[in-house]
């Protein structure tokens, strides 16, 4: 009987040591979780959450414990999905002013555009094409409707319209 007790204890000890070593030394698989959180976000890259894009926000949620209710375009649905993924409580959206952007696209008024390229560098998904002193235009299929191009435009020639 003593042999059995000693053997089992030894196995438990070795396994315990291995596990504790693994949890301390091996890098945690956070990237995977960040990707999962990122996958639930609507990818508008609108930066309304205060982070420069969806993935940075996802990283902040996972690593810094930032609240999950900052994504306005995602709305309550996204909060619910994030809560169930991360095992956190469902919290109300930060403000109710958020809107679903998936059905809107930016439109450049070609008459007014002066070709300054400011909007091109602001677009988070490279959905605006054009060159310096040439008219710019929006690739409607790629535009997420994030409205980030509105502010930098010096002649206010960009409108947000309903997607066709």
């Amino acid at each position, binding site marked *: 009987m003593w042999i059995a007790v000693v053997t089992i204890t030894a196995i438990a000890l070795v396994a315990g040591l291995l596990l504790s070593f693994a949890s301390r030394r091996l890098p945690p698989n956070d990237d995977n979780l960040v990707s999962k959180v*990122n996958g639930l*976000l*609507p*990818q*508008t*890259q609108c930066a309304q959450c205060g982070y420069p*894009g*969806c*993935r940075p926000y996802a990283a902040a949620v996972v690593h810094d414990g930032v609240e999950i209710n900052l994504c306005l375009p995602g709305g309550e649905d996204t909060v619910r999905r994030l809560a169930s993924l991360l095992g956190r409580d469902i919290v109300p959206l930060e403000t109710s002013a958020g809107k679903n952007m*998936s059905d809107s696209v930016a439109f450049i008024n070609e008459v007014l555009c002066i070709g300054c390229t400011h909007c091109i560098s602001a677009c*988070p*998904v*490279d*959905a605006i094409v054009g060159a310096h002193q040439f008219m710019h235009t929006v690739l409607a299929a*790629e535009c*997420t409707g994030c409205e980030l191009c509105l502010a930098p435009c010096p002649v206010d020639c960009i409108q947000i319209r309903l997607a066709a």
Partner: protein
Amino acid sequence: MSAPTFDLGTLHGGLRLPILKDESTARVIQHVPVPMQLVLPLAQHAGEPAHPVVTIGERVLKGQLIADADGTISAPVHASSSGKVVAIEQWPVSRRLGENAPCIVIECDGLDNAVPLSEPIVPFEQQSPDTLFQKILHGGIVGLGGAVFPTAQKLMEATTELLEHLIINGVECEPYISCDDMLMREHAMEIVVGAQILLHALQLDHCYVVVESDKPEAIHALADALTEVQDDRIVIKQIPTIYPSGAEDQVVQLVTRKEVPTGGLPLDVGCLVQNVGTAAAVYDWICKGEPLISRITTVTGDGVAAPMNVMARIGTTVADVVNFIGGYTERAKQLIIGGPMTGKSVSTDRVPLVKATNCILVLSETPPIGTEKPCIRCGDCAQVCPVLLLPQQLFWYACADNEAKLRAFGLTDCIECGCCDLVCPSHIPLTADFRIAKLRMRELEDEKARAERARERFESRTVRLEREKLLRSKELLEQKQKVRKAGPEAIQEILERSMSKDNSESEKDE
């Protein structure tokens, strides 16, 4: 002649519905005269709508191409009679989504002048399959069983090693509808020759013509036609009348005992299914040079004076068709395009008869629909489901909007036959709920794909920006090092040069 056989695979569930076809099959097919006005929708087929090739005010002839196929899955539309194009506009139509669709409106001159008939390809046995496919493509022929998939594309997709049987589907299991039955009775020869053409085009030597056993006249007519042509490649197969055994996958399962896999086509089990009407249309086009400009439709129900089958030009409005057979009765209340199970209720009889219209059903009252009560999980719906789904479970997940579970429980396999609705003791409109859930699922999928693309673009942009930043800082560093290497004198010299440049520039400005 081959002996009719009853040696069949089994189908789960299904319902024995009242047949209600006696009235409409009592008369021979009547020909509706050319109406004053024809309305031809651009999208009478699955896939991309055709694009108009005529202009407003143009005179067109019967059989003239007025809208051409657009894209790989599409079919052309031909003028059904001669006249003047008066409009290309939105018009009420009967379809699953939305009320109106773009249509070409032709004011007929009553002369019914035809374009010179397209050269018939006879004998078709000497043509290559490819010639026949191309010819069928230009005839505007689509599957007349209901799904209206362009026939030529369906044939071309099916020409693979896998293909073993051609199945000509004469099963009409929905109550009221009898247009295929009448077609088989009166035009059996055309169906048989159509089947021969298809067999030749597909390079096959085996064909089943499937008919329900409660249509003895149709079976007789087909058998006579087969005796006449002496073709032992074509075999008549009888099946019992159980709804929905006429659906494509269900026919295949009954005839070949093989189940069409989830998300697959009958081709996956070596079959190609064509409706009897399609076979006849192929014959008309190949052997007589007549494109698909008319079809047989059942006009029936207790809301019309004289239920019957009519041969009408495509584009005739329902009002004109009903007028021809003697108008509505006083009790007429509801108009359904299609059968009572899968048809669509429409609010106006201005809708045109299209290639897909197999039935115009006028009922005296809306079938009583009880008030919806909560699901009691009796499981009756699962017993009748022909595709072995669990509607009660799907309903659960549809309510909860649980996409993953809906997928896991096979919502996409639902054929929307409506059996579960009919047996539900709580009167839950399951099929309608499933249709909405399917639509929602597709929307979510689109949204996901969109988000995925946006994510990729955002990430590649981030990588690019970082790379550019790195490059710039490296260049800057190199320049600094170069200057530092040159020593303090060089720096002094550069500073002086830039000062003098500044000065001269500011002088210039002044």
